[in-house]
């Protein structure tokens, strides 16, 4: 998604955590700035374990001795933006209550490209029974 100039279509059926899964892009009310909405991706649902890396932008978890692992509490989700270096998300303000989630992003509309459907990017695991 571009940083501005594009609109997203949000389905409100998925509000408050209904039917949401890891990998979904969701729109939510900002927990700190009132009146603002934000769009980020869910990386952890309640009960999942997430690894929070060292300093911001320092790469994969555990580097620099600051890495730790948290379990997402009941009724919350862990959201992270795709642009890891610049995204202000759960790595800064912690788990997001699902009550703030207003819906799931179905796709993006822009003047240039028209309608673009956004999928979660996760594929079903393929189990190959023939390989040992």
């Amino acid at each position: 998604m571009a940083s501005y100039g594009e609109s997203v279509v949000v389905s409100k059926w998925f509000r408050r955590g209904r039917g949401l899964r890891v990998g979904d892009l969701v729109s939510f009310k900002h927990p700190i700035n009132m009146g603002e909405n934000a769009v980020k991706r869910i990386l952890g649902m309640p009960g999942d374990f997430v690894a929070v890396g060292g300093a911001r932008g320092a790469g994969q978890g555990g580097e620099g001795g600051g890495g730790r692992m948290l379990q997402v509490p009941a009724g919350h989700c862990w959201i992270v933006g795709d642009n890891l270096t610049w995204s202000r998300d759960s790595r800064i303000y912690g788990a997001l209550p699902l009550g703030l989630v207003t819906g799931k992003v179905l796709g993006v509309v822009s003047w240039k490209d028209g309608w673009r459907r956004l999928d979660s990017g996760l594929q079903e695991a393929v189990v190959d029974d023939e390989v040992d």
Partner: protein
Amino acid sequence: MSPILTGRVLYQCAKASIFTISVAIFANDNLFEIVSISGKSMTPALSPDHNTSGTRDWIVLRKMQPTNNIKRGDIVSYPSPHNPDKIAVKRVIGLDGDTVLLDQRRRSAMPPEKQRGWDTWGGKCVVPYGHLWVEGDHWSGSLDSNHYGPIPKSLIDGRALGLVWPWSRFGQTPWTQYRSKTRVIEGIAVCPKEWEL
């Protein structure tokens, strides 16, 4: 009866119902909502007879900008942080920037594993920017900020205006006389540097 007449009547009824239902849904979500208070966390201010006779109070909530001019002592409604399908109705005790000194009496009513969680606060909590500390009036049976900490202001979706049922107390706000026993040191909230535009 002529079939054309019946068809037209049905069409008019359908149009009117759809219009009315849409307006009602819009009003319910964005203007005012009437909810019933079940549970004893807000006794004696709300639903005082819930345990004995099962009668519940009904209150009307204001849904437009519920946190505009919010004051300590207001009753607010929000989806519960641990279970977003349930709506919790509690009283605002601390605004952002306040230091809340946790009420020891509430700890004694909790089961041991919750007491350990309560102890991690160290007896007080500074409410962060953009958050509120909410508590139920009933000190021994309330799931509130003592359990899950301060809640974001954006989570609040309604502020109570008055009672609508029982009819004898229509329009009253019986919760305004309540003085919470939780001590609060008032403070000013500072927007953290990262969020300043």
